[in-house]
């Protein structure tokens, strides 16, 4: 016997309550066989598959699989009947086998014998996807669907992608039209304005599984007939009939919605072939009854893109995300803040800057070369909405100019009113005039004035009141009143400070993290500066 196979066989045989019942052998490059595992009262057979990379993972997947299709109705199983286990890493084959089988026994105890349910919802298992597929991303609606509710829905294509050799079309669900209503999904206006296609939806409350199955999606239409009302079948019939009058019969996307955890709606998607609808009429006692036939369901992919799920892995504190934000200045600091706020879940941002983005801005800002020369606010607002489908962005070029050119005494009231519509202002202009004007306006919202010293030695964040004098004092006290070591490119109209993207982004992220922490801990955000130790290896926040 080949040494590796021998080591694996020996390794399994050494494990208590595990028995090889069909010999392990090489098949198609992997080792396959059957084992019997006894755990407490359970005795289960598993087909075992071991990939050549074992004990290392194959990408991020375990290179050993324990398969039993009879266990599909239990939690933490895959569509092919393999069991989801999360063993520890071990480079030694025998030790790794021991760990993996211990993890399998753990699964048997927890999910097979005790039938424990995890706090998080586990999705139903869909059949494996075909080559070339579509993904429908859905989000929240401010509406409670009732069982059996159905109608049209609209959706928009947002991209054509590729994964390996597969083409992937991604759509977002836009509106539901139960009866004569119009229920909009909570995407930002930018996404709501995309061109729309139409499909049909049905809300069934229960996951679309066969009546006896809990976790596996129905394979054929007749398996979900018990979930479908005659009204919906009548609706399906009317669509089929109207399509039959067309020369080319397009496919129809069907969304099926159901409740998970009693609070959230999940949607599955099906592609109905236009020339092969799954419904038919059966005459019973002289009356036609709608039925579903046994053709296979062509499941599509869906993705939950509700706000909470989208930002579930991490976001800023709601006192930032749910506030109206004004960002003044879209340079290196401003553009990095805008992108970070978008990724952090912020919902409303207005960006003001009069400047044009040039190629030389790109190396330390959130701008792209392929966007060419364009206004900073135009490109940055596009970047921000490309990141988050939940952020409303207003971008303006002229306002700072108007503030500076206007008669301050005359316009101070409307200016104050305008600025106080925002909860938080990030002033990233390094414009001392603006800091002075904000002090004069005595705004009652929160202002964070961000700037850095040359070579990004310090980042200074000043909060109101007294922005102007704090800035003067902090910079002077840091010894930054004079600075001549600037970057002077040939032909450039103005010298600029020296610092890389990494230099600036580190300080900006550190400062934003500090502000967010203060919000989380309900602490006031004081004026502060971030500085380095003399050797440049340690960073410190100095609060005032």
């Amino acid at each position: 016997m080949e040494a590796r196979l021998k080591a694996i066989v020996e390794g399994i045989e050494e494990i208590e309550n595990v028995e090889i019942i069909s010999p392990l052998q090489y098949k198609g490059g992997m080792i396959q066989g059957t084992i019997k595992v006894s755990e407490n009262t359970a005795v289960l057979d598993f087909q075992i598959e071991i990939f050549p990379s074992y004990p290392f993972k194959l990408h991020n997947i375990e290179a050993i699989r324990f398969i039993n299709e009879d266990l599909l109705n239990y939690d933490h199983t895959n569509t092919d009947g393999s069991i989801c286990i999360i063993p520890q890493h071990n480079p030694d084959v025998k030790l790794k086998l021991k760990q993996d089988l211990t993890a399998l026994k753990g699964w048997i105890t927890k999910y097979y014998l005790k039938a424990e349910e995890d706090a998080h919802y586990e999705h139903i298992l869909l059949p494996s996807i075909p080559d070339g597929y579509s993904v429908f991303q859905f989000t929240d609606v401010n509406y409670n669907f009732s069982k059996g509710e159905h109608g049209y829905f609209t959706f928009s294509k947002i991209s054509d992608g590729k994964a390996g050799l597969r083409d992937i079309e991604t759509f977002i669900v836009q509106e539901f039209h139960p009866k004569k209503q119009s229920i909009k999904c909570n995407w930002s206006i930018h996404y709501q304005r995309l061109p729309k296609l139409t499909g049909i939806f049905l809300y069934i409350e229960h996951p679309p599984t066969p009546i006896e199955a809990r976790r596996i999606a129905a394979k054929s239409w007749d398996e979900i007939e018990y979930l479908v009302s005659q009204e919906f079948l009548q609706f399906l019939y009317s669509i089929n009939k109207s399509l039959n009058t067309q020369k080319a019969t397009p496919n129809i996307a069907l969304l099926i919605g159901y409740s998970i955890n009693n609070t959230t709606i999940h949607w599955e998607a099906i592609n109905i072939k236009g020339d092969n609808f799954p419904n038919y009429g059966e005459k019973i006692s002289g009356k036609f009854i709608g039925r579903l036939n046994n053709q296979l369901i062509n499941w599509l992919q869906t993705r939950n893109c509700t706000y909470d799920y989208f930002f579930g892995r991490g976001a800023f504190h709601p006192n930032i995300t749910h506030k109206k934000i004004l960002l003044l200045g879209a340079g290196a600091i401003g553009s990095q803040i805008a992108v970070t706020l978008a990724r952090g879940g912020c919902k409303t941002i207005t960006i003001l800057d009069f400047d044009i983005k040039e190629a030389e801005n790109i190396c330390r800002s959130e701008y792209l070369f392929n966007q060419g020369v364009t206004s900073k606010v135009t490109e940055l607002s596009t970047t921000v909405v490309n990141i988050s489908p939940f952020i409303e962005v207003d971008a303006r070029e002229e306002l700072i100019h108007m503030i500076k050119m206007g008669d301050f005494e005359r316009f101070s009231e409307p200016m104050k009113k305008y600025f106080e519509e925002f909860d938080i202002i990030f002033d990233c202009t390094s414009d001392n005039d603006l800091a002075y004007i904000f002090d004069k306006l005595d705004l009652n919202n929160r202002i964070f004035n961000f700037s850095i010293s040359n070579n990004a030695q310090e980042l200074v964040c000043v909060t109101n009141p007294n922005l102007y004098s704090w800035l003067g004092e902090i910079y002077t006290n840091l010894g930054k009143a004079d600075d001549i070591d600037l970057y002077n490119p040939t032909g450039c109209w103005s010298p600029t400070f020296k610092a890389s993207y990494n230099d600036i982004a580190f300080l900006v992220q550190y400062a934003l993290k500090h502000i967010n922490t203060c919000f989380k801990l309900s602490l006031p955000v004081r004026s502060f500066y971030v500085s380095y130790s003399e050797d440049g290896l340690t960073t410190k926040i100095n609060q005032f």
Partner: protein
Amino acid sequence: MATDKDKHLDCVLNSHKIKKEQSLLDKHITKKNEVKEALEEEYGADLYAPFNSGSYAKHTAVNKKFDFDLIAPFKRDAFATLEKMYTEVYDFLYEKYKGDATIRKQKVSIGLEFSADADGDVIKIDVVPGRELNKDQYKDDSNLNLYVYSQFGKIEKGSERLKTNVKAQIENVKGNAEKDSIRQMIKLLKVWKIYNIKDPKSFFLELITIKAFEEETIEGTLWERLKKIMEYIRDNVETVSLPDPGNRNNDVADTLTDSDKTVLKDDMKYMIERIEENSDNITSYYRINPKFPCDDENKNSNGYGSKEDSLSVPPPTRYS
């Protein structure tokens, strides 16, 4: 160049002397007397002599932001209830000054904010109506019951009244052996509070300063003493008890929540750290009243004062 902290603090105190605003002060005194006479005329024998309280009476006022508190001590049987006292005094002041001032119901006082005069000055007088606790005893014990106004319903029993002794509160500062030093410290903390828009009530800062003098040896130069006070607040604000000298059952420390106290502790911590790190930072925390900069003699020593008499100007060497 390093700032001489003592000279700076001396300048801060000088620039905030109440006498620097003599004309505004005179206007307050005149208006206060006018309100006092109006009350005496209206209530006659029902009213003991109204008197001035608050920071001016305690000699802890600073000229950046000040108002006058006028205590109106009523006799026990002048009104059937404290609420009636408060409401009737409000109605009287409202009728009397409605054309000249904005009249507001405040927690224990009635706020009169007179419209700006020809110089643009705004006079603010808070009238605090109080009623003696027992008939004819006010002259002996100075105890008063105040009515606690609330826009909304009061839930706790007894929450509509507050026993106090304003004279004892005034004497608490005035009668202290170290009163001059205490007053300097209180004034400096008030300057810090006003310019940096901080929440703690002046009364709280007063009492915790006095407590620090009681419990620690506070000696030395202005900065040494101020630093000691700030350290005392930093180290004790979360646990200290501050009985109101006007009513020992009332703990003024309770006017701050736990998180308010933590914020004040951090205020002191960071302020000490930043000033110790760079003496120039003292000018940001303890500001000179730009209306009354210090004289040239003061400025010339140590190069100090080079930026205090005008706004600090941010340099063009900050970038974004």
